[in-house]
């Protein structure tokens, strides 16, 4: 007889996340006025619903598939499975708990895993070794960084978890997209063999079409962000990333974007800034926001009057996927996957990224850039200085570099980050 509780306890981190989302949601609803941080309240509501649904399905025995954030969850919708984004779990729990998932980072460090690898993957790895999560299989592209390549195989060799690797080429041309499209299809069949299911591409198509609709709304939000003041609050950047990690291909993601868009349109119409303060500085964060303190986004809005126009997870200007036949659909999926946030920027030379940043600065009237040099992302190590020079020469705006671990507050404290930004913003005003 199937023990629902036992099966559900294969993903204890989802239960923890669900509890956090529910508690935070209730607190926000009870304490803050209705119109404050709408992206947070909407994000909490929809994410909580989806995670609750996954916990229910885990109780019914659906397989648990761990995936890299750049292997989008909607691609797994051809199976009856629970997608668990490794990077999403670590970083969102680091935002919602006082010490985040530090004990799991430490557990991996104590096992000899290098301290400087990406905390996003180390957290869930630690949870696996602590026995609170059990994957039936893992799937990750062979990109975007050494952390991914080094960390995912730990599960395969030390936990005997089947690891599926769609091979992602470095070059971007028609042949590469076709190659990766074949890889995606073949690897989904391989995953199907592991979990004993046949991939249902009709079902996949329905979820891809939801993402196409989301894409249209996302582009409208990006267009509205050109307005001064920016009609979208900073926390949208964080919850936009959260929606990509946890809600991909789901109706709830569309609902979240509808909620955000509605508020943004109203603010745009009324030339209204969020937070009751004047927008003094328009910033672009070419890399990540600080996940261990998503409240920093709100602090910037309220205390500094600084808008975050984009972070790396939110300047993805992709095209809708043609779902008219399987071949075109997989080609579209391959293009989207290879141009997904961080994949596009990490597996190429810096030139296209620098060009994108310079263009964004001009089109969106940015006053500055803030580059969070995450310890795990060594592929971006020298990027800050090169971008700083490009922005100074091409646009005449400055860039601030903050060395930190975006998922671990022990490397650079929140107070230190705030002080750096305060001093930097004084030089701009």
């Amino acid at each position: 007889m199937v023990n629902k509780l036992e099966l559900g306890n294969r993903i204890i981190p989802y239960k923890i996340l669900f509890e956090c989302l529910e508690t935070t949601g209730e607190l926000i609803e009870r304490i803050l006025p209705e119109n404050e941080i709408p992206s947070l309240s909407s994000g909490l509501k929809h994410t909580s619903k989806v995670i609750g649904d996954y916990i229910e399905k885990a109780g019914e025995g659906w397989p648990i598939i761990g995936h890299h954030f750049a292997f989008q969850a909607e691609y797994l919708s051809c199976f009856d499975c629970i997608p668990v984004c490794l990077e999403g779990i670590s970083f969102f729990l680091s935002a919602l708990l006082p010490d985040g998932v530090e004990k799991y980072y430490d557990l991996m460090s104590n096992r000899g895993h290098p301290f400087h690898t990406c905390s996003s993957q180390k957290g869930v790895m630690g949870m696996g070794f602590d026995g609170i999560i059990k994957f039936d299989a893992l799937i990750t592209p062979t990109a975007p960084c050494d952390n991914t390549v080094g960390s995912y195989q730990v599960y395969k060799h030390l936990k005997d978890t089947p690891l599926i690797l769609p091979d992602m080429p470095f070059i971007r041309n028609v042949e590469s997209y076709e190659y990766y499209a074949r890889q995606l299809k073949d690897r989904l069949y391989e995953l199907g063999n592991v979990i004993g299911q046949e991939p249902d591409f009709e079902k996949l198509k329905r979820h891809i079409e939801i993402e196409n609709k989301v894409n249209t709304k996302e582009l409208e939000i990006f267009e509205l962000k050109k307005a001064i003041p920016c009609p979208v609050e900073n926390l949208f950047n964080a919850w936009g990333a959260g929606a990509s990690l946890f809600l991909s291909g789901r109706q709830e993601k569309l609902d979240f974007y509808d909620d955000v868009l509605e508020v943004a349109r109203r603010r745009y119409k009324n030339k209204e800034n969020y937070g009751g303060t004047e927008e003094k500085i328009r910033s672009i964060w070419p890399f990540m926001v600080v996940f261990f303190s998503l409240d920093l986004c709100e602090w910037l809005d309220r205390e500094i009057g600084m808008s975050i126009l984009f972070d790396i997870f939110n300047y993805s200007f992709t095209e809708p996927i043609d779902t008219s036949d399987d071949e075109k659909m997989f080609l579209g999926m391959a293009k989207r996957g290879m141009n997904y946030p961080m994949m596009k920027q990490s597996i190429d030379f810096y030139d296209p990224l620098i060009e994108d940043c310079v263009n964004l600065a001009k089109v969106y009237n940015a006053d500055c850039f803030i580059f969070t040099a995450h310890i795990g992302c060594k592929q971006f190590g020298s990027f800050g200085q090169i971008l700083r020079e490009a922005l100074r020469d091409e646009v005449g705006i400055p860039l601030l570099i903050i060395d930190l671990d975006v998922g671990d507050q022990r490397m650079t404290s929140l107070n230190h980050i705030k002080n750096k930004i305060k001093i930097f913003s004084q030089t701009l005003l």
Partner: protein
Amino acid sequence: MVDIIQESNLNERAIRARDLVRETKLLNLARMANILIDLYGLEDAFQRIGKREGQEIEMRFPSLEGAFNFTLVSSKENFECRIGRARDPVAIIIINVKAEKAIKIISEIIRLPDGIVSILKIIPKYLTRKLKIKGSLIAAIKLCRCMMIGKNSMYKR
């Protein structure tokens, strides 16, 4: 007896899951209390801490099997809600309600505007024993006032 039988039926993993989830509620409450006061709290109440600066206060949640501890500080940026029992508390606030009502009580305190009227609004909870205070009533009230964000300008918009 029933509880003991049910407990023995739960395997180790289930007990762990239950404990982790229960612990999560308190941890998340502490995290959010810190964020809310950091973002929306007002300095006035902190500036009135005076000679009580450095005193410890414990807030117990019997239904959640845990406690917060606070040190009274004279500046908002030093405010910290920590998990665990206080070492030498001058006051212990006991939130004596069921687990599902704990958030409601905390929210009500935080949502209030700092002032005498708000203190009066807490008194019924004190009289109905939803809130028990052991030790210094004044220190407990000072902590509650530091946590009240109801005077923030966002409530006027």
